[in-house]
């Protein structure tokens, strides 16, 4: 380790006094605190870090800044960790990805060797594995094993906590380079609350890795930022920019959801690779990557380097590396006429106009062939430093809604229009030094010229995609997957555009090639971080735990948890019919409508009439939309001249509150709407013994004479103030008790005690569904849909077209009335014991669909399947024989009925 390090120098990130040991491929490696996994491994002699995605070519360090995919490894079971961005930790277990049986001897590299005869070029999946079709499952298995970056352990159980935090700041700066630090300090010095996000292990960007000359400037900037009170999140990265400048920032196991008043993008620029033969060999490195290793980690494990460049950045890199002690043999500059005097002054051979042709070597670089006008030069080296200039990191600008344009002067894309609240500074804004000449396309060689390092897409693949008709960058991207890998185009976006321009004969130095759409996440991000602590709001009634503790099978019913049944739904149905049952209906929506205009308001809202209601009475009502369709139903109780208590369906509670409030605001009526759904628990005590049982808990006169069907009254029951509604959704004598939720469990227990002599049973949702179906009571949303109007739903009696006031849906319903019904909602009973599936079709005489089953259950009491269906009017007469389709291929014979199946005259309800 130590012998591969250069002498200690200001600006290095490592702490040589503290050694850190970890496992790499099962053997122990020791680095220094401050090392990344990559730098420590490099110091220990590792050159191959990964195998490429498709061809399994050996890959070594290239960018050393988290931009390329070459050093993705598995750390402590987590795949796709960027080794060059992850600090070493004592005891961590690091393994390779995507190689078998080992990283050094990967049999799967034979896939690459077979190219192109095996057809491994772009699109080979589609072209190769369709014959024979029956073999696809086998192909799929093999391909899935061979492809991908790492494997997830299906047995792994997460023990770590991941968190998400909502953050508000005045200014969020993404990027801790020179421009970002400047912007952050300036904003904080104005008294603004500023947070800065830096992905790397060191602040300062190029100031940090560009050599010792910048140290003074960097130190001063960091001191200024700290003095101004800037909050620094590091290492952390912005995963994207969403609408409203929402920026998820990932730091460790925490996702910070930033909503800044101002977003400053200071993401800098990214150095681009050059495209030439074997440009992915271990030992081919970006200039900035090599400089990071030398200047920040003090590594110099090379004997001899050659620099390949198309920009001044390569020249600067050559001088910096030479200054750091690297033996730079030559600089091949593809430009002609650039000033190479500084290079020559440093004693380095300067090869003007030479461009790279191909790197030599199999598992590592041993040399390079450069060419100019047919002249070839072969240079021996073990490090090839390449610099294809840099491009502005504008992906986050695009994601945030900004526009970008090609700037010919700078030869790069720069931000054009920005959304409110966004600012771009530094190299990302295009203010840095020009990107240099657009690199010319490398001459063809027999070697792979890799454009996309993530997906192993070569120049040949892109050319082939164009030949096959994918004739633009966006189309080629979809076909070849270029720019779609973990780097999200950082390393290949520019070069793929250049290859396409070359193939299509376009000017590479123009906007004609275009750009692809940038989408989040900007970096590979763990699902654990995205999920973090989930929010799953659950509504529980006041008796939730009683149900669960007494065998209730709790299931989701909308947002609520409700008991499906308590283990024996049939006996729960029987209990209600024969003696006594108790159900929790607290989920019903409940609204107070109160004020001088309350009656008039309800008259306008419902097709029913409510102004004529007597006090202490309840009436069933439906609510229609403007188009006359049924949107909800429930009861309305008149509690005083100006006060009504309205119930809605459970799922409709929120919507009805909005509906009521909206129309109240529109009509400017003198009434108030208060949603008391949360406040009130509600229980329905039902069955022939309901009166007897309830009487033991109250002095309230429950006799039929004093409190008849559809009555409403106030009573103190077991010490609890209740509104009692005498209604019956389940078809038996019943009392719906509405009471303060806090007393819910208390009263429930008292009711169960009072019912004990009558063998009371709690009943759940499923028994309730059977019971209501026996009475042919509809459920809005199940038996009706967005086109169901009350006339066709068999409720013409509810529609008061003679009301003086206008009401919502009146116009449409009048039209329906003039038109006449086309469909009718009817009951049916099946004869052969079959129970149709809800949603299935009624088959007409001609064998075509003629109607739809909306509800279907087997009623043990009635000994047959019963249900509700929409039928054409002409097939809906009482007694009409229909056939209902059965998934088994046959049909179920049934008969139409219009009367309730159970107690059709309602005698039991009114008893």
């Amino acid at each position: 380790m130590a012998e591969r390090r250069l002498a200690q120098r200001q600006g290095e990130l490592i702490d040589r006094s503290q050694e850190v040991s970890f496992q790499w491929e099962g053997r122990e490696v020791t680095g220094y605190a401050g090392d990344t996994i990559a730098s420590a491994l490099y110091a220990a002699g590792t050159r191959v870090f990964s195998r490429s995605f498709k061809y399994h070519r050996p890959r070594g360090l290239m960018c050393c800044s988290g931009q390329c995919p070459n050093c993705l490894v598995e750390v402590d079971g987590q795949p796709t960790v960027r080794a060059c961005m992850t600090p070493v930790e004592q005891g961590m277990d690091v393994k390779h990805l995507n190689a078998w049986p080992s990283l050094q001897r990967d049999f799967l590299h034979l896939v690459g060797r077979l190219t192109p005869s095996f057809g491994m070029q772009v699109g080979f999946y589609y072209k190769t594995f369709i014959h024979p079709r029956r073999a696809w499952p086998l192909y799929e298995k093999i391909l899935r094993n061979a492809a991908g970056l790492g494997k997830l352990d299906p047995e792994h159980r997460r023990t770590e906590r991941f968190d998400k935090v909502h953050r508000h700041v005045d200014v969020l700066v993404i990027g801790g380079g020179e421009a970002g630090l400047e912007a952050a300090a300036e904003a904080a010095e104005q008294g603004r609350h500023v947070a800065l996000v830096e992905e790397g292990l060191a602040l300062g960007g190029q100031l940090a890795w560009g050599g010792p000359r910048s140290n003074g400037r960097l130190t001063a900037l960091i001191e200024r930022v700290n003095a101004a009170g800037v909050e620094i999140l590091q290492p952390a990265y912005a995963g994207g920019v969403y609408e409203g400048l929402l920026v998820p920032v990932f730091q460790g196991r925490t996702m910070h959801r930033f909503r800044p008043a101002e977003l400053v993008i200071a993401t800098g620029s990214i150095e681009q690779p050059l495209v030439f033969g074997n440009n992915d060999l271990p030992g081919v490195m970006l200039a900035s990557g090599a400089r990071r290793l030398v200047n920040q980690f003090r590594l110099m494990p090379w004997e001899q380097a050659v620099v390949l460049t198309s920009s001044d950045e390569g020249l600067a890199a050559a001088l910096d590396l030479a200054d750091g002690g690297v033996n730079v043999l030559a600089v091949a500059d593809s430009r002609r006429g650039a000033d190479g005097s500084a290079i020559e002054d440093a004693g380095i051979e300067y090869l003007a106009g030479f461009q790279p042709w191909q790197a030599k070597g199999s598992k590592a670089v041993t040399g390079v062939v450069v060419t100019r006008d047919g002249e070839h030069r072969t240079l021996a080296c073990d490090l090839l430093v390449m610099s294809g200039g840099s491009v502005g990191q504008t992906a986050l600008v695009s994601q945030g809604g900004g526009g970008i344009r090609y700037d010919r002067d700078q030869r790069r894309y720069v931000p054009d229009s920005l959304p409110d609240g966004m600012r771009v500074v530094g190299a990302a804004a295009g203010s840095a030094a020009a990107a240099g000449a657009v690199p010319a396309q490398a001459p063809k060689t027999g070697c792979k010229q890799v454009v996309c390092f993530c997906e192993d897409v070569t120049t040949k693949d892109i050319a082939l995609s164009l030949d096959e008709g994918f004739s633009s960058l966006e189309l080629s991207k979809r076909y070849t997957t270029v720019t779609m890998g973990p780097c999200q185009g950082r390393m290949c976006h520019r070069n793929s555009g250049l290859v396409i321009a070359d193939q299509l004969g376009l000017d590479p130095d123009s906007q004609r090639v275009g750009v692809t759409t940038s989408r989040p996440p900007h970096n590979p991000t763990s699902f654990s971080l995205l999920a973090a602590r989930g929010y799953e709001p659950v509504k529980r009634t006041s008796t939730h735990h009683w149900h669960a503790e007494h065998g209730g099978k709790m299931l989701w019913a909308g947002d609520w948890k409700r008991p499906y049944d308590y283990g024996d739904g049939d006996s729960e149905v029987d209990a209600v019919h024969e003696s006594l049952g108790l159900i929790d209906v607290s989920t019903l929506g409940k609204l107070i409508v109160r004020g001088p205009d309350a009656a008039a308001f309800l008259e306008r809202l419902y097709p029913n009439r409510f102004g004529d209601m007597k006090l202490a009475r309840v009436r069933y009502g439906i609510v229609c939309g403007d188009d006359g369709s049924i949107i909800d139903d429930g009861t309305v109780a008149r509690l005083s001249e100006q006060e009504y208590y309205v119930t809605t369906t459970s799922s409709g509670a929120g919507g009805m509150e909005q509906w009521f409030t909206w129309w109240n605001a529109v009509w400017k009526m003198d009434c108030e709407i208060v949603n008391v759904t949360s406040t009130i628990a509600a229980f329905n005590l039902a069955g022939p013994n309901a009166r007897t049982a309830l009487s033991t808990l109250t002095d309230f006169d429950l006799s039929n004479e004093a409190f008849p069907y559809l009555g409403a009254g106030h009573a103190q029951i077991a010490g609890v103030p209740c509104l009692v509604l005498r209604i019956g959704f389940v078809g038996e004598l019943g009392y719906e008790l509405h009471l303060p939720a806090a007393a819910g469990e208390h009263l429930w227990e008292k009711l169960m005690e009072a019912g004990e002599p009558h063998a009371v049973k709690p009943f759940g949702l499923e028994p309730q569904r059977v019971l209501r179906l026996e009475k042919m009571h509809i459920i809005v949303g199940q038996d009706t849909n967005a086109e169901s109007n009350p006339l066709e739903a068999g409720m013409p009696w509810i529609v008061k077209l003679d009301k003086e006031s206008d009401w919502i849906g009146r116009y449409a319903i009048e039209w329906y009335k003039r038109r006449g019904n086309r469909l009718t909602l009817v009951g049916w009973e099946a004869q052969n014991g079959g129970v149709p599936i809800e949603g299935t079709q009624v088959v007409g005489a001609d064998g075509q669909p003629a109607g739809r089953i909306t509800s279907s259950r087997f009623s043990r009491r009635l000994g047959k399947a019963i249900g509700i269906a929409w039928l054409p009017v002409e097939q809906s007469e009482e007694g009409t024989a229909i056939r209902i389709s059965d998934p088994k291929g046959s049909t179920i014979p049934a008969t139409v009925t219009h009367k309730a199946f159970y107690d059709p005259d309602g005698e039991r309800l009114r008893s």
Partner: protein
Amino acid sequence: MSTVADPFAFLSPAAAEGAVLRTPMERNHRRAGAELEDRDGWRVADYPSNGDAPAWAADISHHGKIDVRGPHAEIDRLSAGLELGRASHVDGVWTLRLSPSHAVVLCPFSRVEQLRARIASESEAICATDMTCGWAGVMLGGERVRDVFMRSSSLDVRPRRFPAGTCMAGSVMRCGSIILNDDDRFWVLCGWEFGEYMWESLLDAGAMLGIIPVSATAVLRSEVAA
């Protein structure tokens, strides 16, 4: 029908006689080993005191709450001209001004019925509803109260934006809530049906920050005084 002065008396747990009143979090308190003590008919959780916790949560669902709606001028008059988003604390009673036509009054449970009747009697145009068991309540406190809150809601509670004596309505743990800053102790009022979820979620959000459950009687000003 029985004749009642207030047709909506059945909304109010204050009218209960001898009934056990429970908050939605009672099972959580029991599981956490808290004692349940009777307080005005409510079973209120009593936790061992721990004043040094960096963050704490108390179930204050039993506190009295009144929803007040009416014309702008009436609400202005009743709230003594409170600005929107501001809250006042007078004689043990909080008044929160949520919108021009909507205010919320928080008071000890023993005073809720009397106070509601008084507000309602001020004007026929005023609609005052006892929402004591319409909203479950959690009070968050401790040095790291904001850190807990930031893990629960996207609302901006930085001191500059949400100082003491202010209130707002918004989403906490994805539930519609009313939030009051009571001298850097946050009241979070949510639907009664969400009470247990809210309690569990807030404690989970604060788990890594060292949050602990505490007794309402130890943190509610009115009850501490009592």
